[in-house]
């Protein structure tokens, strides 16, 4: 069983469309994250949730809206997609938030906006 699974793995879509990426973790962790990795491989945190509660909301456009129906799921919805949104989006989880906790990453969702 994959610890952190996200779907779809690949997504090609046109500018202006709305799309969602789903994420589930079966590790029983309290904390989940969304990271964005750009073409230069820079990994930047977007959101972090503790037990369904939003803890970190970095400066990302409000076209990006995370939703956590329960602590095992953290989905990412993106409205009005732009070319600059093309990147790899990683869902991740850790037992708790805060320093020193191992972050377990999913395999990533490759988003290409054309």
């Amino acid at each position: 069983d994959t610890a952190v699974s996200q779907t779809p793995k690949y997504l090609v879509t046109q500018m202006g469309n709305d799309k969602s990426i789903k994420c589930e973790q079966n590790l029983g962790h309290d904390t989940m994250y969304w990271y964005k990795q750009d073409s230069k491989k820079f990994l930047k945190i977007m959101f972090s949730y503790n037990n369904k509660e939003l803890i970190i909301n970095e400066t990302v456009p409000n076209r990006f809206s995370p939703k956590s129906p329960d602590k095992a799921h953290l989905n990412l919805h993106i409205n009005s997609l732009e070319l600059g949104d093309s990147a790899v989006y990683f869902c991740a989880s850790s037992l708790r938030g805060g320093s020193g906790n191992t972050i377990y990453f999913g395999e990533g969702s490759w988003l290409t906006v054309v």
Partner: protein
Amino acid sequence: TQLLEQSPQFLSIQEGENLTVYCNSSSVFSSLQWYRQEPGEGPVLLVTVVTGGEVKKLKRLTFQFGDARKDSSLHITAAQPGDTGLYLCAGGWSNNNDMRFGAGTRLTVKP
């Protein structure tokens, strides 16, 4: 400017050579982690260091946390092609969920 600066950005060496990569910041961290990422996959944790001056060894990999907890180094002895990958350092603080990543060092070990 990034909070964590990693150097070198790219490193290509022959099998059997030794190498050191660096992770530097002006911020003090509660802990620092090293991850390795292979193409098409997410990063995987290698080590966590939490005490200034701490040294941890993982087979041929030696990790050190700076005395002031602002920097770290990763030394690989007798590199092998299987060590090829993107090495990312990440710093965190005990009072929040935030883990900040460096831009990584892309290591290629040629047979």
